[in-house]
Every structure is written in structure tokens, then in C-alpha cells.
């Protein structure tokens, strides 16, 4: 089995990943950008543009050139995807703890999550890409519902001061977001054809960033920046899900949006990791999928934490993605004289 994805499927998958990952990055994982998260996303978008344009350069095929540079490139993508999957699986564990599922065993939850992720990756790019498009539609419906029912509670002055945590911190936030966005564009490296249309990466990046910005603005409009004072992931998630004032009925769509968004991103990275592993080793797709899931399971349940170097790792993702794309591009040029 070859893990493959068409252009028309990679685009919505990447857009969904960009939207969810950027939002998770600036609003939940790194708290200090809280009410200025939307600026970080816009800054990250500008920084990620060169990468998108590079991915969009003309040239068909899976970017697989058959050169010596191919394997290191896929290794970089693999490392990036596995790291992201581990972060997301841990995030899911924390979310489930908060959302009334605290009696669940972490091992059981992780196993089920990764089993589902693996099953979906085995469905190949068609299932994941088209599923991401459906998720986009469901997302718009649920989000519109949430926004419309809360519009009278919005406090526009909570968006200010725009430079909230300071210019230096904002710049770092933009770099980190660029790293998250770059990672979320990696499924586009595997696209088999150009059915995604012209500027496939640019379009998915723009669409994803627009959605993530809207989400961040929504969150900022509903929560005072004081929330960052009691900085803990759970309290921010609390602000996001319950928001202190959100009606109980409204929490349901938000919880659903949250879980489906994080899970969609996990699926995208899971697929990317498995496909990169296949690119490196040439093994059967199923073996790669379950191999990658096993590795993620081990990493999720170990005590290893990247919290100390988190900012560096996030920024490093940007460089990793650029390096991988450049390596694949060089390979492509050499392979097709």
C-alpha cells in the first residue's frame, strides 16, 4: 500500500491543520500571547509565505526525485510530524481530563486515539483530505452558531492593547506561529498531482490563517487579557470552552469543535509522519502507519518533555520545513534534466 494524497485532498487537509494548529499554538500551548494571538498568526502567515511559495513552485509528482537528498528530507519531515503528534496527543489527554473525562485512563485514551488515527491514515489521503473538507463545513456551521449566540457579550476593548506582551514577545510569537504553520503545510509535500489548483499551498495557508485569526479574535473578544495572569493551560482551556459566561448549551459545540479540530490536526500529522517514513524506508504503507503510531504512543507516555526548549523547537520547525522543501526541490531539479 502506498500512502498517497491528491492535490485536491492535500489542500483542505493542510488548511484544516493550519487553522487548528495555529490556534492551538497561540491560544493554548503558549499563553503569553493570549489576546494578541491573532497578531501572531498574521505575523506567522507573512513569515510562512516564502515556504508556501516554494511548495507551490511548478513541478509535478510527489517531490520524490530519487536522489540521495530524498531520504534526509523525509527524515526531517518525519521528525517534525512525530513531534507534533506527540504534542497533540498529550494535549488531547489534558483536554479530556478537563472535559469531565477525568476518570479515563491515559493509556486507554491514548491507545484509542492513536488506533483511530492509524485507521484513518490507512484510509489514505482521499479519506483524510475529503474528511477535512467536510470538517471545514461543519466547523463553519458550528462556529457561526457559537458567534451568533454570543455576539452581544463581545467586548471589543479586550482586543487592546494591541502590543500586549511587548514587541519582542510578539516577534517571538510570530516566529513560533510560523513554525506551526510550516509544519502544517507538510502534507502538501506529498501531493501526487496538481488537482489542488494553482497556488495550492498559498491558498491553504491563507484559508487556514483566516480561520485561526477569526477564532483567536473570538476568544479575545470574550476573555479579558487578565486571564493570562492565572496562567495555566487548564485555565485557558476553561476560558476557551466555558469562558465563564458562555451558556451551558453553547459549550457543547465548542467542546465538539475543539476535539474535532485537535483530532483533525493529529490525523494530518499522523499521515504525514507515516508517509515520510514510507518515503525513507520504502516499507508498506500499513507498516509505516502502525510503526509511526507506536512511536507516538511511546513518546506520549514517556516523561520526556520539551517544555524547556519549547520556543526553540517551535521556531526550529520553521527551519526544518524549509530545509526539507529545499532538499526535495533540489532533488527534483537534478532528477529531471
Amino acid at each position, binding site marked *: 500500500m502506498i500512502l498517497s494524497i491528491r492535490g485536491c485532498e492535500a489542500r483542505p487537509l493542510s488548511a484544516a491543520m493550519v487553522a487548528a494548529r495555529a490556534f492551538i499554538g497561540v491560544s493554548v500551548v503558549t499563553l503569553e500571547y493570549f489576546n494578541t494571538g491573532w497578531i501572531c498568526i498574521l505575523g506567522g502567515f507573512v513569515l510562512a509565505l516564502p515556504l508556501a511559495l516554494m511548495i507551490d513552485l511548478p513541478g509535478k509528482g510527489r517531490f520524490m526525485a530519487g536522489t540521495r537528498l530524498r531520504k534526509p528530507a523525509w527524515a526531517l519531515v518525519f521528525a517534525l510530524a512525530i513531534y507534533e503528534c506527540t504534542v497533540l496527543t498529550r494535549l488531547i489527554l489534558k483536554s479530556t481530563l478537563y472535559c469531565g473525562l477525568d476518570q479515563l485512563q491515559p493509556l486507554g485514551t491514548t491507545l484509542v486515539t492513536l488506533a483511530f488515527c492509524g485507521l484513518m491514515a490507512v484510509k489514505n489521503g482521499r479519506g483524510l483530505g*475529503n*474528511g477535512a473538507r467536510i470538517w471545514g463545513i461543519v466547523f463553519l456551521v458550528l462556529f457561526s452558531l457559537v458567534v451568533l449566540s454570543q455576539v452581544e457579550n463581545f467586548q471589543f476593548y479586550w482586543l487592546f492593547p494591541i502590543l500586549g506582551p511587548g514587541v519582542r514577545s510578539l516577534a517571538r510569537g510570530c516566529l513560533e506561529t510560523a513554525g506551526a504553520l510550516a509544519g502544517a503545510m507538510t502534507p502538501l509535500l506529498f501531493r501526487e498531482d496538481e488537482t489542488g489548483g494553482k497556488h495550492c499551498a498559498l491558498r491553504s495557508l491563507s484559508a487556514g490563517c483566516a480561520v485561526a485569526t477569526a477564532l483567536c479574535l473570538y476568544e479575545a473578544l470574550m476573555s479579558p487579557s487578565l486571564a493570562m495572569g492565572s496562567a495555566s493551560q487548564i485555565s485557558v482551556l476553561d476560558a476557551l470552552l466555558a469562558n465563564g459566561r458562555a451558556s451551558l448549551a453553547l459549550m457543547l459545540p465548542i467542546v465538539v469543535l475543539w476535539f474535532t479540530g485537535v483530532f483533525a490536526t493529529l490525523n494530518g500529522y499522523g499521515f504525514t509522519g507515516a508517509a515520510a517514513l514510507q518515503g525513507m524506508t520504502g516499507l508498506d504503507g500499513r507498516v509505516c502507519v502502525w510503526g509511526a503510531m507506536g512511536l507516538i504512543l511511546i513518546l506520549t507516555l514517556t516523561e520526556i518533555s520539551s517544555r524547556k526548549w519549547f520556543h526553540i523547537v517551535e521556531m526550529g520547525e520553521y527551519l526544518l520545513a524549509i530545509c526539507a522543501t529545499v532538499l526535495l526541490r533540489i532533488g527534483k531539479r537534478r532528477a529531471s534534466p
Partner: protein
Amino acid sequence: MTEEMARLRREAVSGKMEKDRAALETLFHFPENQDIQLREIQCQGSRVCAVFMDGMVRSSQVDDFIVRAVQRAGAPMPEEGRGKYLITQVLNVAQAQAEAELGKICDGVLGGMTAVLAEGADTAVLLDTRGFEKRGVEKAGNESVVLGAQEGFTESIRTNLTLLRRYYQSADLVTEMLSVGTEAPLKVAVVSVEGITNPRALEILRKRLRKIRCGAVHGIGQLQQLIEDSPWALVPQMLMTERPDRAAAALSDGQFVVVADCSPYALIAPCSFFSLLQASDDAFSRWQYGSYMRVVRFLGMLISLLLPGLYLALTEYHTFLIPVSLLTTIAETRANVPFPVYFEMLLMELSFFMINEANLRIPGQIGTSVGIIGALVLGQTAAEASIISPILIIIIAISGLGCYCMPGHSFTIMLILYRLGIEALCLALGLYGLCLAVALIVCQVCSLQSFGWDFMTPLAPHRPHNPDLIVRLPAFLQRKKVYARQGEKT
């Protein structure tokens, strides 16, 4: 079939009456097989033999236009071209063809034709004398509509093809007849429209039909399982209909129709998820009414799939998400119920399935009583006896109703099975389980294909289409060629 029989089937008519007759007798296991009739007639001194299957032919036609016509032939048969002579000069049956291969003659006789062998003729004559008992065209029973045509397919392939021709009157309508199965071949007709039906999908179908190696294919349901893209998937990837108007509408949308003998249904492909949700009266009624009915159906599907699981997740794990007034009501109604929610739900679902199955199997009049007993006695008494909470009965009843809003039976069963899976995951993981289950179902459905076409087309991946998926806009806005037509981008 033994090697000897297979060899015999491949042989041609020799022109020697004794030998040909013996070959046919062997093929039909005569004289053990009493249904086969071999009637010898003299035609001006030459031996002629009519071979037919008792009960499959119209006797009067054989008597008047074959036996009597041969006996009253005005002149002796010529030495050369006796088969042609019989067709043009002697036999009075409109549909007649010369056939040399014994296997084909055998198949013709099994289908209700009469084979006429003549001494010295190197071909037999196959005459259309079909006259077996069959059901007439009646109202479609399982796919009834309020507005629109009421006729349904029957068990006769000929009648079904005629119905299709009546609903789609075009010279471009092409019917390919073939048979599947090696031991008891089933007659299958592939109906398509030249210039409209997607040739790629048609080619895939032909390949799959050719690949069938079963001894016998029992009806169109089994045929569907043999030719659809993913037989392991819960979702049917071909649309089964008993309505000729629906099949004709599919033909004009670029889909092909497969009709089989002895099955009052037709298969339509390539089909999308949305076509499974559509009924034929959607298009017949005004666009507002049609859209309204579809939206109701779509909501019914969602409620049926998600409501029981959601209730389970909320009551088991996320009680904080339930408004206080509702939570109080649920708590009050459950106060005297000794079982946990999941057990109650399992009990209720089982009762519902059993009532449903009993209703299907029990003869008509009693079936209605079973429904009433199920609803009143089981439901009401169980609630009064505090075995099941009334809210749960309401939830199961609503989700059951949602299931039966669907136009196709297989789609209904699919919803029930998916619902059970969702309930299991909700029980294990609450709302997170619900999200996982929905994500997996969406991914599974999106990964399917129907004869080379993505199952969620034209939504995912997006393809140009008419405004006719869930909401149907007026007919004058439906100008685009639909997704399955040839020439459209795949």
C-alpha cells in the same frame, strides 16, 4: 458443470437429427428431467424437432405458429440453408434467429425460447415464445412516494427494460445483455445512454461483471456485493431502487442502470452519498417542498446517528453540559430505574430492533398488532414499571423515526449499525468518543469510491454541480451537467 458438459456446450449443430437431439438430451438431462419437451414434426418428409421448456413457453404460440406451421409447409425444404428457409418461409414467429452453438441454444431454451432443429440444417432456429407466469407492474412497495409515478419494477427483466424505455424514450438508450454465473447464469442488462453515461465507469462495470466466477448469483443484491468497490464498507456504494422513474432520472444524470432477471430492483451507479438521501418525489414537487423534505431527512439522519450517543455521553460524563432544568427532569425520571443508562439503552435498542424485525416477518394484519403491542405494552409498561426512563424511550423513538426517514432500506440499516458503534464509543469516551466516531465515519465515507468516482462528490472533493444536494433550488437553475456525466472533470 462437468468437463464433458462444457465440451458439449461448445459444440455446433451437426445437421444430423439423431446426434443433435442426443446432445440436447444430454445437456438437459432428459428423460430424468421431465420439464424439457422434444417434439418431432414432419415437414414435407423432413424431420424437424421443436425443443422447449414446459411452463416457460406460451403453449398456444408453439402449437399455432411452430408445430402447425411446420406441418402445413407448402413445399419440401431445400437441401441448402434450411435454417434460413424455416425462418423466412415456414415459421410464423416475429422474433427468430439462427444459432449454431449448442450452449447458446440451451440458454435460449432455458429462458423460454423454442429451438427448432431440422435434419440437414447446420443451425437451429431460436424463436421467442416466452410465456411464463409473472407478476404484473404494481405500485412500488418499499419506496413509496406521495407525488410522482407509482409504478415499480417487477421480477421480469424484459418488463423492467420496457419500463425503463418508457420512462427514457431516446434512441441513445443502449441495453447490453449478458449473463453472470457459470452454473446457473443470471441474465443481467446494463442500461446506459450513449453520449451521456460516463464511459470510464461503464468500462469498470464491464470488467467487474466479466470477473465474476461464482457458480450462481442469487439476485441483484448478491450481484451488488460482487461488483461494488468496497464490499467491506457499511455504506452501500450503489443505489438500489424499485422505481423506474428514478432509474430513468439517473440515466439522464450520466449514471448507468443494472437490471437482473428475477429481481424487482435496479442498481444505479456511480452514486454519491447525497443520492442515497434523495427520493424521487423531491424533484417532482416544488423546489421549496422538495428542499424541505430533504432537510428533514438530513436532520433525521443526524438525529438518528448522534442523539442516543450524545445522551449517553452527556448523562454518563458531561452532566455539567446539560441545562439544570433538564438535568433535574432526567434525574427525577431515572430515580426509580435500577439500571445504568447504558443498560437501559441497550435494552431499549434491542426491543426496538426486535419489534422492527417482527413487524417485517409477521404476516400483514398481525404485523400491525405487533407494532401496537411493541409501542404501547413494552414502552408504556416498561416506563410505568420503572425499568426504562421515559426520556430514553423518547430518544430511542426519535432516533428510530429518523432512521426510517431514509428512502433506502440499506441506508437505514447502515445508520442503525453506525449508531450502535457510536453508542459504544460514547459509553467509553464520552463526547470525545463521539467526536472520534464521527471523524472515523466521515473519513471512511470520504475514502470510498463508486465506480471510479469519489463517494462524497461533488462536495468533497468539490466538483461543479447543480444546486441539488441537500437544498434543491428551482429547476431553471439546474443547468450544469451533473458530476457523473462524461466530459466532466473527474
